[in-house]
């Protein structure tokens, strides 16, 4: 459905040329597709190009055969698109129902009776029907995100692009949101961009990891996880000194016998007491980034 060929995007920032995307190739079919990567990897730029908002510097993007380099192609894609940007701006004085209704008008839903049905339907889908007539300015962050997804769905899009949708949500909201996206992906393409590994693991069968504007990995979450098997250890010590020797600390846990570190790296030979364990998706991601020479020493 989505065909991206040798896509590049450069722009100027403070006098410097930034390569946000660098000859990126990707084919995306139906269902839920995850786009993972650190901040600055080019995820948002790619999402904006796919939404027809940003123009590519080089390469081609086709969605359902519509070329995004042309005005007609962009218009055709936007008419089947639902888009939830990372920074979600709304009109605070409108109610949720009015906001979604307004976006429906902008998306070309001209028939008032059909539009009303559609607005109520999507507000119900996101669990906001009871709050539909409250002004958005009184909503929590999670409720605003739900309004955002409702406006994205109001034209029954064939392609749904959601950029960092769970940022700032509490755990309950995140789970609810993830489940909603999976449900929606049953009959459309949903593109989920995030830097939260867990969100991808819980929702996507297919994913790509982006780094420095290039695809570092393309496959399933289990394949990404398997790549890290043999490279993950648990090491418990009472020393306050963090393990090093080219190992990345993925997590730390304070136990009665000391601090338990979860380590990812080529070898833990310098720590004979370290026990090799089964890798998880987060380990797979860290190992991938480490193998590619990316710094992942967050802890």
């Amino acid at each position, binding site marked *: 459905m989505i065909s991206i060929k040798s896509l590049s995007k450069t722009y100027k920032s403070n006098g410097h040329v930034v390569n946000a995307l660098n000859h990126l190739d990707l084919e995306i079919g139906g269902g839920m597709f995850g786009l993972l990567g650190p901040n600055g990897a080019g995820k948002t730029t790619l999402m*904006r190009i796919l*939404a*027809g*908002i*940003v*123009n590519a510097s080089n390469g081609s993007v086709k969605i359902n055969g519509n070329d995004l380099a042309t005005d007609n192609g962009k*218009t055709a894609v*936007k*008419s089947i*698109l639902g*888009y939830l*940007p990372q*920074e*979600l*701006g*709304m*009109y*605070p*004085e*409108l109610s949720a129902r*009015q906001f979604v*209704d*307004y*976006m429906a*008008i*902008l*998306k*070309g839903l*001209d028939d*008032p009776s059909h539009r009303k049905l559609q607005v109520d339907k999507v507000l119900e889908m996101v669990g906001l029907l009871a709050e539909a007539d409250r002004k958005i300015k009184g909503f929590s962050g999670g409720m605003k995100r739900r309004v955002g997804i409702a*406006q994205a769905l109001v034209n029954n899009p064939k392609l749904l692009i959601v950029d960092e949708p769970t940022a700032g949500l509490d755990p309950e909201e995140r789970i609810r949101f993830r489940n909603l996206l999976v449900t929606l992906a049953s009959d459309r393409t949903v593109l989920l961009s995030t830097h939260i590994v867990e969100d991808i693991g819980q929702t996507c069968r297919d994913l790509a990891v982006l780094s420095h504007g290039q695809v570092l990995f393309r496959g399933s979450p289990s394949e990404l996880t398997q790549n890290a098997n043999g490279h993950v250890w648990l090491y418990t010590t009472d020393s306050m000194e963090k393990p090093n020797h080219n190992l990345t600390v993925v997590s730390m846990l304070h136990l009665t016998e000391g601090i338990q570190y979860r380590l990812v790296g080529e070898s833990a030979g310098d720590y004979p007491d370290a026990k090799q364990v089964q890798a998880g998706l987060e380990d797979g991601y860290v190992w991938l980034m480490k193998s590619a020479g990316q710094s992942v020493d967050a802890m």
Partner: protein
Amino acid sequence: MKQDSLKYTFKTYRLDHLYLPAAFLALFMIICMFRLEPDDLFDMSRAYLGAVIPLVGGIMASYAILDDPALELRFGTPARAEHLLVERLGLIFLIQVMCATIFQVFVTTIGADLSPLGSFWRIQLAWFIPTISLMSLGCLGSLISAQTMTGTFLTSLIWLIELLARGWLACNSGKYFLVFMGALMADHPDLTANQITLTVLTFLFLIFSWLLLRKQEQYI
């Protein structure tokens, strides 16, 4: 523009942006109430209509597009650039029309004679032409730089320079670009040419604004 879309154009407009035109309207109405000499009343009236309304319109137009909090969401819809331009500038223009109408009714009621500006339509052109000129300039300025402040600054600067140098401008080629001519030099022989030039410039500015607005990525 469709009726439902128009409804939301009003509903999404930030009410605090109305303070500026409302404050100037109230200020000039109060001044006019206390300046009861006919000449003073006429001067205040043409100053408001021909100079203040265009300035306020230009400043408001600088904020018309880029101040929209849901701009990225709008860009993700098939709605066209001209739709956004007409919707936002149209509303600001409507506010200026209301201010001009209310003010004219008010000053006429308290005895002002605006006939030195010409016929009824000449009086309307005296504020209409500079208003659309400065509005299109403010909009273009903010879109060129992707900064609302630039549009405001550009509009205010042109307004101030033309106001201070109006005598000099009226004597040379600058007369075609003098936005205040209809209000301050209503008997100038080149008034019609001036108004045609400003109208053409307005269309050019709007076309450039439309072309810029099609390049959505600069504004998110």
